C-alpha cells in the first residue's frame, strides 16, 4: 500500500472519530429519528459492533449490556425482533446470532435465552420445503436475502442440517440471469445486493461451481464509476454501501483485482465525516451506521492498513468466523 502515503491528511482513516460516533448512537434519545428507526435497533447494534471490531476497538460497547439487549429482543419461538416488543423476523434473528458470535456468547442463549436449537428451528421453519425458498416471517414474502440470512446464521450455529440446502441452492440458481448476476426472485433483474446474498449462500453451501464467475465478475467490475465509487445496477449512482455488496462478491470469487482499488479507497475516505465521525453514502452527505460499516468493510477487503480483516461471506471479522466455525466443526 505504498501508494497510500501520497494521500493528503484528510484522506486518512478517522478511526478515533468513527469509534466515538458509533458509541454516541445510543445516546440520541432526544432525537425524533432515534425513535423512528427503532425497527432497525438490533441491526444497528450489529452494524456498529462489527465496525468497532474492524476498527480494533471491540470493547468500545459494553459486552454485558450488548448481550442483555440482544436477549431482550427474543421471543419464545426462538426468533428475534428489532427491539423489545417488536415481532420476530428472519432479519433480526440473523443479526442477533451475528452479534452473539461477535461477542462469543452463544452459551448465553442456553443459559438465559431459549437455547440455540429453538433459534435455529425458528429460521428453519421459514423454509418452503418444496421450493427451497425462505420467508422473512409468518406473513410470507420470499427473498434471497432471507435465504442467505438463514444459511449464514444456521451455519454459525452449526444447525445447517435443519434445512434443505440442496433445494435452497436450486432456488438461488433459478434467480440467476444471463449477465451472471442474481435477482430477488426468479425473473428479477440483477442487483448487487442480491448478488452478494446469492454468491454468499452458494459459498456457504459449497456450490461456487454453479456461478458463471467471469461473466459475473465482468458485470460487477462495470459497477465502478469514474469517480471511483461503485453503483448497484447499470446506469445508477455510486454509493458507499456497494463497496461491500460488489466487492465482497468479487472477493468470494477471487476477482477483487478487477476494479481500481486506489480509486475506491479514495472514494470511501472522501465520504467520511472526519470531524464528527461516520461515513455517508457519498461525499458530503449525512453519515449513518450502515454506510459507516460498509465503508469500513470495503476498506478492509481492499487491505487498507489499521483495519481487521472482514470475512466476505459472513460479514463478520475473519477472526470471529474462524473461532465460531472452528469450534463447531
Amino acid at each position, binding site marked *: 500500500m505504498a501508494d497510500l502515503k501520497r494521500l493528503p491528511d484528510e484522506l486518512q482513516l478517522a478511526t478515533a472519530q468513527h469509534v466515538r460516533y458509533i458509541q454516541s448512537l445510543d445516546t440520541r434519545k*432526544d432525537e*425524533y*429519528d432515534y*425513535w*423512528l428507526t*427503532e*425497527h*432497525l435497533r438490533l*441491526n444497528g447494534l450489529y452494524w456498529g459492533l462489527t465496525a468497532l471490531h474492524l476498527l480494533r476497538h471491540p470493547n468500545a460497547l459494553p459486552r454485558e449490556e450488548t448481550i442483555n439487549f440482544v436477549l431482550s429482543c427474543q*421471543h*419464545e*419461538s426462538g*426468533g428475534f425482533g*428489532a427491539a423489545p*416488543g417488536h*415481532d*420476530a*423476523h428472519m432479519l433480526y434473528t440473523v443479526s442477533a446470532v451475528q452479534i452473539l458470535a461477535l461477542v462469543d456468547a452463544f452459551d448465553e442463549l442456553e443459559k438465559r435465552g431459549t437455547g440455540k436449537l429453538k433459534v435455529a*428451528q425458528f429460521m*428453519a*421453519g*421459514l*423454509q*418452503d420445503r418444496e*421450493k427451497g425458498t*425462505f*420467508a*422473512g416471517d*409468518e*406473513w*410470507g*414474502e420470499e427473498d434471497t436475502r432471507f435465504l442467505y440470512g438463514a444459511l449464514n446464521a444456521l451455519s454459525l450455529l452449526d444447525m445447517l442440517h435443519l434445512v434443505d440446502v440442496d433445494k435452497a441452492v436450486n432456488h438461488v440458481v433459478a434467480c440467476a440471469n*444471463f*449477465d451472471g448476476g442474481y435477482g*430477488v*426472485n426468479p*425473473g*428479477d*433483474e440483477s442487483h448487487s445486493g442480491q448478488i452478494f446474498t446469492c454468491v454468499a449462500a452458494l459459498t456457504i453451501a459449497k456450490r461456487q461451481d454453479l456461478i458463471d464467475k*467471469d461473466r459475473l465478475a*465482468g458485470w460487477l467490475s*462495470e459497477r*465502478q464509476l469514474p469517480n471511483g465509487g461503485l453503483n448497484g*445496477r*447499470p*446506469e*445508477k449512482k455510486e*454509493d458507499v454501501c456497494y463497496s461491500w455488496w460488489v466487492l465482497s462478491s468479487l472477493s468470494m470469487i477471487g*476477482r477483487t483485482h*478487477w*476494479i*481500481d482499488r486506489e480509486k475506491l479507497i479514495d472514494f470511501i475516505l472522501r465520504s467520511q*465525516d472526519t470531524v464528527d465521525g461516520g461515513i*455517508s*453514502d457519498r461525499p*458530503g*452527505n*449525512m453519515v*449513518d451506521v450502515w*454506510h459507516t460499516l460498509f465503508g469500513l468493510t470495503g476498506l478492509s477487503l481492499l487491505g487498507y492498513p489499521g483495519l481487521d480483516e472482514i470475512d466476505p461471506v459472513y460479514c463478520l471479522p475473519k477472526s470471529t468466523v474462524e473461532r465460531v466455525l472452528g469450534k463447531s466443526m
Partner: protein
Amino acid sequence: MDNHGIARVARTARTEEQRQQDLDKIQKYKQLDDAIRDKTSRHAYDDPTLFPLTSKLLRLNPEYYTIWNVRRRCLTSGLLSRPSAGSWPSTASPSTSPSATTNPSSAVSSSSSSAAIPPNPASLTTGKSGTTADVESAVDSTDADSEILRSELAFTVPLLLEFPKCYWIWKYRKWILEQAILRLPRPLASNVWEGELALVYKMLVKDRRNFHAWGYRRYLVARLESADLLGRSLVEDEFAYTTKMIRGDLSNFSAWHNRSRLMFRLLDERGADDEARAAFLDTELNLVQEALNVGPEDQSLWYYHRYLISQVIGSKGMPTITPNLTDGRKISYLEQECEFIRDLLQDFPDIKWPYEALLEYALALRKLRPGIKGEEQEDDPNFWLGKLRKLDAMQTGRWNDVERDIERQLADSII
C-alpha cells in the same frame, strides 16, 4: 439510520427550540406506540379502537413492521369474515410449520392471528361462511370484505408514493391481495388484482427503474395468470408493455431485462418453429441496432445486444430462444453483428462498450471456427483487448486475466 442522498449538516445545528419540537414529537409518537402495545400485550386485536391507532402510527412510520402485523391481526380477528375452509389454497403460505414460525406471545389468544398460515381446520368451521348456508349473510360478508380490502389498498397508496422503497408496505399490499383471493368470489378478486397493474404503471412512470415495482408487476402477472384468478396467459400483453416502455425510453434497463425473460414463454406459446424463432431474433436485433444507433453509450442496450448474441451462441446447459441454429448460421449472425458494431465505431471511437462486445464476439467466432485464424486484425481478440486497456484502465486487472485466458484458449486450440 440508513440515509441515502441527504446532505450533511453540522450536528450542533439544532436550536433549543428545535430540540423542544423534537421532544414534543417524540412524546406524541411514544404515546401512540404505548397505546398500541397496551392493547396488543393483552391480545385485544378485536378492540375497535386499535385499528385506527395503527393507521395513525403507520402514517408516521411505515417502516415499523410490527404495526403492519398488528393491523393484519386486527383484520383477521373480526374485521374480515373468516374464509371458508375449502378456499384455503394448499400453497397459501410459504411457512410450513406454524408452531415454529408463529410468535407465541401474540398468537396464544388469537387463533386467527396468523391468517397466512392455515390454522387448525376445526376452528374454521365456526366461521360465518363455513357452516351456515345463509346466502344473504355470505353476500353481506363478501361486500364488507371487499370494501375493507379495497380501503386497505387505498390506505397504502399515498404511503407507497411517499416511500416507494419501503419493503413492508409492498409486503402488506401483497398480503391484502392474497386475502382477496381467499375471501372474494373469483371475478371480484380478479378485478381487484387487475386494478393493481394500474398502480404499478403509475409507480413506474414515477421511477422507471424501481425494482420493487418491477418485481411487484411480475408477481401480479404470475398470480393473475394462475387458476386462482384469470387462469390465462398474459405474456403477449407483458411483452407489449416492455415494447411500450422501451419506445418511451431506450435506456430502460429494467424493461429490456423483462423483455429478455418473457421471450421464452412468448415463443413457446406462439408455437414458433425454427424459422419463426429466427425471424423473431432478427426483429429483436433490428430493434436494438436501431436503439444503438441513437444511444451507443447506453449500457442497457449493450447488455441486451450481448444477451441476444448469447442466445445465438448458446451456453452450456442453458436453454436458448433459437435452439436449432446451425454453426454456419451462428457464424453469419456473429459476423453480421460485428460488422454493424465496427460501422458504429466510425462515428463513436471512444466508447468502451462496443469494444467489449467485439472482444466477446471475436472469442466466440474463434470457438466456432477452430483452426481458422482470421487474417484481419478485427478477428484477433487481442486487438480489441488493446483498445479496452486504453479506454478503461480502471479494469486493468480484469484485462490481464482476459489476456491470459485468450492465450490459454489459443494454446488449447493448437494442441
